C-alpha cells in the first residue's frame, strides 16, 4: 500500500503546491482580464474595493477552514458559528454595554468555544467531523435566533463599532484611497494564519494528522488534543468573521450565515487544499476566496442573474478539483 503511495504520487507531489497555486492565480488573472474587457465598469477603484470588501468575511472563514481541511477534517459550521459570534458580540456590546474591544474578543472567543466543542466531540466522542459540525451548524443557527429573540441587534449607540470594518485608516492617511479596514483585517488574518500553518507546532501537526493520523499518534503526538485545538482555531477565525460581518452591517443578523460554510470550503478547495488532507496553503485559500468574489462580482456586472452565478460557481469548484486530478495523473 505504502509502496503504491510512493510510486503514484512520486515526483509529482514535489511541486504540487506551487503548481496548483500558480494555476489558481492564473485563473484569477484570467477572470480579471475577461471581465475588464467585457465591461468598463469592472476595473474601477470602487468596484475593486467592493470585491475586496466582499471577500473579507468569506476569506476569514476560509482561512479557518483551511486548517481543518489540511488536518483531513471538515467544518460545516463555520457559517452559523460566524452568525453566533456576531450575535454574541451584539449581546456583549449592546446588551451588556461592554467596551468594544472586549466585545470583539468575546465574539472571537465565542466562536472559538464552538470550535472547541466541535473538536472535543470529534476527538473524544469519535463522532465523524461531518456529523459533529453538522450538529453544530444547527445548534448555533438555533442559538443565534434564541439569544437574539429572532431580531437583529443594532449597534446604534456605538457608531465606532461600524468603523472597525467599514472605516478606512488608509483613507485618512492617503485621501481618496478609501479601502475599508475589513480588507486589511483579512490580510492581517491571512498573515497570522500563514505563520501558524508554517511556523508553529499547531500547523505542523495539522499536516501530520492530515497526512497519516495513525503514524502521528504512534509518534507520541497527542492527536486528540491537537485536533480539538485545530477546530477551536477554526472557530476563532469564524468568530473574527462574525465580528467583521456585524461591523459591516452595523448589526448582528441572526438569520444570516447558512450557506457561508460552502463558500468557505469552495475557496479552500479552489486554492488547492486537498480534502484528503496533508496539503494546502494559506495563499491558495486567499486566491480561492478572491476567485469566488471576482466571479460573483463580474457576473453581476454583466447582468447575469444570481441564480446562474451559483451554477457557474459550482462548475468552477468541480473544474478546479478536476484540473488538479488531471495534473496528478500526468
Amino acid at each position, binding site marked *: 500500500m505504502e509502496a503504491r503511495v510512493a510510486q503514484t504520487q512520486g515526483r509529482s507531489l514535489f511541486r504540487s503546491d506551487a503548481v496548483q497555486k500558480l494555476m489558481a492565480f492564473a485563473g484569477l488573472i484570467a477572470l480579471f482580464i475577461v471581465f475588464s474587457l467585457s465591461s468598463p465598469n469592472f476595473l474601477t477603484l470602487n468596484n475593486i474595493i467592493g470585491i475586496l470588501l466582499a471577500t473579507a468575511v468569506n476569506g476569514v472563514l476560509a482561512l479557518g477552514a483551511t486548517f481543518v481541511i489540511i488536518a483531513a477534517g471538515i467544518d460545516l459550521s463555520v457559517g452559523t458559528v460566524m452568525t453566533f459570534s456576531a450575535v454574541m458580540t451584539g449581546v456583549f456590546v449592546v446588551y451588556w454595554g461592554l467596551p468594544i474591544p472586549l466585545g470583539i474578543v468575546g465574539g472571537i472567543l465565542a466562536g472559538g468555544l464552538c470550535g472547541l466543542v466541535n473538536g472535543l466531540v470529534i476527538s473524544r466522542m469519535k463522532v465523524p467531523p461531518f456529523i459533529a459540525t453538522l450538529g453544530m451548524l444547527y445548534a448555533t443557527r438555533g442559538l443565534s435566533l434564541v439569544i437574539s429573540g429572532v431580531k437583529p441587534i443594532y449597534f446604534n449607540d456605538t457608531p465606532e463599532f461600524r468603523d472597525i470594518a467599514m472605516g478606512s485608516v488608509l483613507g485618512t492617511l492617503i485621501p481618496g484611497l478609501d479601502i475599508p479596514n475589513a480588507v486589511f483585517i483579512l490580510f492581517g488574518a491571512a498573515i497570522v494564519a500563514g505563520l501558524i500553518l508554517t511556523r508553529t507546532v499547531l500547523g505542523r501537526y495539522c499536516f501530520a494528522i492530515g*497526512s497519516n493520523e495513525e503514524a502521528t499518534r504512534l509518534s507520541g503526538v497527542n492527536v486528540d488534543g491537537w485536533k480539538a485545538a485545530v477546530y477551536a482555531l477554526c472557530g476563532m477565525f469564524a468568530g473574527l468573521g462574525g465580528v467583521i460581518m456585524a461591523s459591516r452591517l452595523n448589526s448582528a443578523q441572526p438569520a444570516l450565515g447558512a450557506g457561508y460554510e460552502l463558500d468557505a470550503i469552495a475557496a479552500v478547495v479552489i486554492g488547492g487544499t486537498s480534502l484528503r488532507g496533508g496539503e494546502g496553503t494559506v495563499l491558495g485559500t486567499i486566491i480561492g476566496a478572491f476567485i469566488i468574489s471576482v466571479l460573483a462580482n463580474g457576473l453581476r456586472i454583466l447582468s447575469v442573474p444570481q441564480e446562474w452565478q451559483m451554477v457557474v460557481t459550482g462548475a468552477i469548484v468541480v473544474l478546479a478539483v478536476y484540473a488538479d486530478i488531471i495534473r496528478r495523473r500526468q
Partner: protein
Amino acid sequence: MGDILVLMEGIEKSFPGVHALSDCRFELRSGEIHALVGENGAGKSTLMKVLAGVYAKDAGRIVYKGQAVDIPNPRAAQHLGISMIHQELNLMPHLTVAQNIFIGREPRRRLRFLLDEDEINDRTQQLLDMLHLRLDPRAKVADLTVAKQQMVEIAKALSFNAEVLIMDEPTAALTESEIDELFRIIRQLREKGVGVVHISHRLEELKQISDRVTVMRDGRYIDTLRTQDVSIDRIISMMVGRTIYETAPEAPDNADREVVLEVKNLNRGNVIRDVSFTLKKGEILGFAGLMGAGRTEVARAIFGADPIDSGEVYVRGRRVHIHSPLDAVRHGIGYLSEDRKRYGLTLGMDVENNIALAAFNKFVGALGWVNRASVRQTARRLVDALSIRTPSLQQQVKNLSGGNQQKVVIGKWLTADTDILIFDEPTRGIDVGAKSEIYHLLNDLVRQGKSIIMISSELPEILRMSHRIIVMCEGRITGELSSAEATQEKIMTYATQRGGIMNAGASSHSPADPAQSRSA
C-alpha cells in the same frame, strides 16, 4: 550480552473474539540482538506493541531495568527509551524527512510555540551522517523510494536515543545491500549496549544477525534459545509445531506450448514502463521484485482495473481491449488480489455466494431469479475439489482461516471459467501448513491447462513454484530467468537494478552473500 533490560511475564491480551496473547514471556538483555519468530498470527507484533505502549495489556507485568513499569501509550515508551518500527511504514508522506523524524518533539525557538526548522534540519543531518545515510533532510517523504522511507523510519527510531529498539519486519522491502547496511547499523547499536528486537520471517537472516531467538506459536511463548545452538529446521518445527518438508519445484518442459497471453509495450505513467512478456498454457510465470517494483500495477492494468497509457494485450493470439475487470473476465482472465479481504471477498457473505459472485449470470434463470440449487451444487463441488475446510456452505467467509479464504477466492474464479489466473501474493498472511496446500492447488490448476501468473515477494516461493521468472524493478522488466538458471542471487541482482544508491561511505556490497547462497 549485558544485564536484563526488559522482562515481560504472564502477558495476556484479548481482542474481541480473539485471545491474542496468553501467558507470554519475553526477555531482552542489553547489547543483544534478539530475534522473535513465529507464524503469522502467532502474536509477535502484538506482544511487542504491548511493550511499545500501542496496546494495553490485560494482565502480566513488565520489568524495565529492574523496575516494574506501566506503559500506557507510545509516548511513555519513548520516554523510557523503547522505540518501535512498525510493520507498516508509519510516516507522514506530505512532510519532509526531518519533519517526520522530529514529529512530536520539534525543537522550538525562544517563543515556545514557534518551530525551529533550521535546528530540525541540522540535527537530522547529523543523525543521517552518523548512520551514513545519504538523504536530504528537506526531501518530502512521498518522493522517496520505499527503501529510503524505511531508512527514515530507522533514523527516527534511533533519534530517541533508544535503549530498546523493536523492529517489525524491517527488511521486507529492502535490497541486499540495504539489508547489509541495516545490519551494520544494528551491530553498531549492539556495541553501544542497545537491546534490539528483530521480528522477521527470513530465518536465514535471523541466523546471521541474532544472538538469541524466541519462538512464539498461537499467542503462546514456546522457548528462547541461543541462535548458534539451534538449526533453522528446528526453529521452523518449533514455529509450526511439526516438521515441514520443502519439496523441490517441478519444472515441466513447456518450450513449445501455446501462448495464451501476450503483453506488448505496456505503459502507465512512471509505474509501468514498456513491459512486454508472454504466458504459455499450463505455465506458472513468476513475477519477482521488491515492494513497489510495479508488479501489482501490471496485473491490475492487464485486468482492466487501472487505465493504461499505451500497450497491446493478446489473448490466445487475438488482440483484446480490456477497459474494465468485466472485460477481463469475459476474456477469461481472473485476478486474485494481494489484499483478498478488501478486494477478493465479500467477508460478510457465505461461502457459496462468494464462490458464485463472479459468475452470477450463470445461475440466473428466467425473470432474474437466482437458481440456488445450482449455486449450491457448484459450491459443493468446488469446496470438495479445493478441500476448503468449512463447517458448511452457509458459513460466513470472515470466519474461515486465511488459507481457506484464499481457496474460496480461487473457487470463485474457477466458477467464472477463467483460465488465465493472476495470483498476487497468493500466500500472504497464510501459515506454513496452508501454504503448501495452496502450492499443490496451483500445480493442479496448471496441470488441468490453466495458466498462472504468480506475483510473490518471497523468493523461495518464486523459485519453488515458477516455470519461468520475470523480475521487475521500478516499473521495468529487468530480467527473465528459466527455473533451471534462477537463484536468489540472480533474482536479487535484477530486482535491484535501479538508479540511486543510498549508502554513503558504505562498502560496495557483494551480491553473493554466503548466508544467502547457502539457502538458495
